[in-house]
């Protein structure tokens, strides 16, 4: 059976998608900033009819068409939509690949008769896509290159053996060549594909290299070209259906252990580790109970994960019994296989992560922090507070000058002048200054917006009071005032 390939081209893919989400009347375009200019990325049919083309700057476009409505483009969202369309196209044939950023290619060999023939299948595609609000151009030929050329320049069907007849009259650009090659060929007077086909092959190759003839042969189906279908996403879920309902915690844990072994084998095969696991327990009365486990680090060791489920499983209300269990790794991260040293292989490995997981399941994993050094002379910016589950300890802290152990938001105290006040009240205490060390002047980081530092420079003093408290005071000379910001141990 000869090969049959359909190529779908969405000439206004990005703007069609934007208008599907929020339709507007009249001229419309998506813009993307490139370099220093906002340029049109994709224009709808009305705008294109008024002479607006992708690549034009937005200011030029507005001069031509003052009523133009624009929105920022979202190329990542477009790519996701194209993948969704590729999944939809699986209704016609299983062999669907992406073609650039606005096209699909389907290998429909042996599938067209299911839709009543090739013409009927193309009509069905066009009907469904236009109903979804997408402009589409379709081409069907015996090769990927031929279908590509037809979709973009002619539309229609090239039956078996009539590839040259249908593709021959199309312009040279239908051959998927580099723009420079196209221009060079056109300068030689080669306007159409059949002009190129008529030339002696050796001369073309000597002048342009093998590219044009390879593309020509691919378009005519004389050189095969593969279509790479999208891979199926890996499935990280396992299920266990029970003949009789269970209700004891030990039984549920035994079932979980069995599911976990299967799931971890899958995770290991793909060198990934689970971050978020969800155990769904279906009861006899069709109610669902879920146990979620957020792990402090990606893991795939069933012996370590199973004890972490104990707390969640103990809280499950079994009712009349549980007859189906499903375990799913909802979030998965890469976890390459590593060589263990003899020191790591012992008992201590990963114990801290397990503890963090157990604590994190009570208070939220994002509430466990660790300190990381930061490069700033502003006291409250000289360190970072990072979630411990997503960071590693690193770097070293350097205290060049005495710093208080406790830092709090500045608390104003009474006082005037550039020297620390002799006596002041702070937190309902009367304190007397006995010794003051300073000033240490710290200037705000002007390149960052920080409301607390709007008052300008700060002169910091370490003040020892007769009552014992050792406080970190500062004076703001540009907006006179005294504040307490920290306390030494």
């Amino acid at each position, binding site marked *: 059976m000869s090969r049959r390939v359909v190529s779908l081209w969405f000439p206004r893919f990005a703007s069609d998608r934007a208008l599907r989400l929020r339709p507007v009347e009249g001229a419309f375009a998506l813009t993307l900033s490139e370099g220093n200019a906002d340029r049109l990325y994709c224009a709808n049919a009305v705008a294109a009819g008024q002479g607006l083309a992708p690549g034009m700057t937005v200011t030029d476009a507005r001069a031509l068409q003052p009523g133009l409505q624009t929105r920022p483009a979202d190329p990542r969202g477009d790519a996701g939509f194209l993948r969704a369309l590729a999944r939809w196209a699986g209704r016609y044939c299983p062999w669907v690949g992406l073609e650039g950023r606005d096209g699909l290619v389907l290998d429909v060999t042996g599938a067209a008769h299911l839709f009543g023939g090739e013409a009927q299948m193309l009509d069905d595609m066009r009907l469904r896509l236009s109903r979804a609000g997408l402009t589409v151009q379709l081409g069907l030929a015996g090769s990927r290159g031929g279908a590509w050329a037809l979709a973009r320049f002619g539309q229609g069907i090239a039956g078996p053996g009539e590839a040259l007849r249908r593709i021959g009259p199309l312009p040279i650009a239908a051959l998927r060549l580099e723009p420079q090659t196209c221009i060079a060929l056109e300068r030689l007077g080669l306007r159409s594909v059949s002009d190129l086909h008529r030339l002696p092959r050796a001369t073309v190759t000597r002048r342009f290299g093998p590219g044009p003839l390879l593309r020509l042969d691919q378009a005519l189906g004389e050189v095969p070209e593969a279509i790479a279908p999208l891979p199926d996403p890996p499935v990280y879920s396992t299920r266990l259906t029970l003949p009789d309902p269970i209700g004891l915690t030990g039984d549920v844990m035994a079932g979980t252990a069995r599911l976990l072994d299967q799931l971890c084998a899958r995770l290991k095969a793909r060198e990934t580790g689970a971050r978020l696991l969800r155990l769904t327990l279906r009861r006899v009365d069709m109610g669902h109970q879920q146990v979620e486990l957020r792990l402090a680090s990606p893991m795939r060791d069933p012996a370590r994960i199973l004890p972490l489920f104990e707390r969640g499983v103990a809280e499950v209300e079994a009712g009349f019994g549980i007859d189906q269990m499903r375990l799913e790794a909802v979030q998965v991260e890469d976890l390459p296989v590593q060589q263990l040293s003899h020191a790591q292989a012992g008992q201590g490995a990963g*114990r801290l992560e397990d503890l963090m997981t157990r604590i994190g399941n009570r*208070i939220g994993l994002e509430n466990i922090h660790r300190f990381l050094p930061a490069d700033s002379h502003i006291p409250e910016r000289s360190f970072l507070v990072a979630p411990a589950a997503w960071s590693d300890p690193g770097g070293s802290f*350097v*205290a060049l000058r005495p710093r208080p*152990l406790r830092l709090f938001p500045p608390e104003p105290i009474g006082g005037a002048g550039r020297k620390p006040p002799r006596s002041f009240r702070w937190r309902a205490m009367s304190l007397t200054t006995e010794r003051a*060390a300073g000033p240490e002047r710290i200037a705000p980081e002007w390149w960052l917006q920080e409301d607390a530092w709007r008052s300008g420079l700060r002169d910091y003093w370490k003040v020892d009071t007769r009552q*014992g408290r050792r406080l970190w005071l500062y004076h703001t000379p540009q907006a006179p005032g005294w504040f307490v910001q920290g306390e*030494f*141990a």
Partner: protein
Amino acid sequence: MGRSMQSDQITTDFPAVFPLRGHRTHEVCGPGAAGFAAACFAAVEGPVLWAVEDWRQDGLNPVALSEFRDPGQLLTARCKTQTDVLAVAEEGLRDGALGLVVAEISQPIGLTEGRRLQLAATAGKTPGLLIVPEGMGSNAAETRWRCAPYFDRQDSTLLRWSLIKNKKGTLVDWVVRWDVASRRIIVVSKVRE
């Protein structure tokens, strides 16, 4: 109190109570409590968990903490309620993977909570330290300390550490200071009351 009449044999020496006895929970109060906890952080090995309630504004400054020990070994847990703080502390103590668990609480705790922490510390062989407000400790604690900076005309680093509860000895006051170079507490003098 008549403590001066006690013989030297039952008078507690500093090395007998500090570093804190493992497998036990201890308490500390007073304005120098954070410094005491930092000194305990420096005296142990392995990672340390510090549980606080999330409304607290007076956060630790790791730059200052680095004069005690590498702050990379410290994990802080911010909990919504004091019950969570205690639960996190119990979990950390029982696990045994940590060198020390510090919990800051704001409300008095009962004997039940104190005893549970004590049992967890014994099970996990980990010392625990509760930073409590003045006069709000529980009777289950092994020792309780009151710490405050101590004003002295010559030295601006002195601290007064008073042992105000001790299950295995007498109550003593010390004036101490943290030595940054050797990273340990140096007893300057013993103050008898």
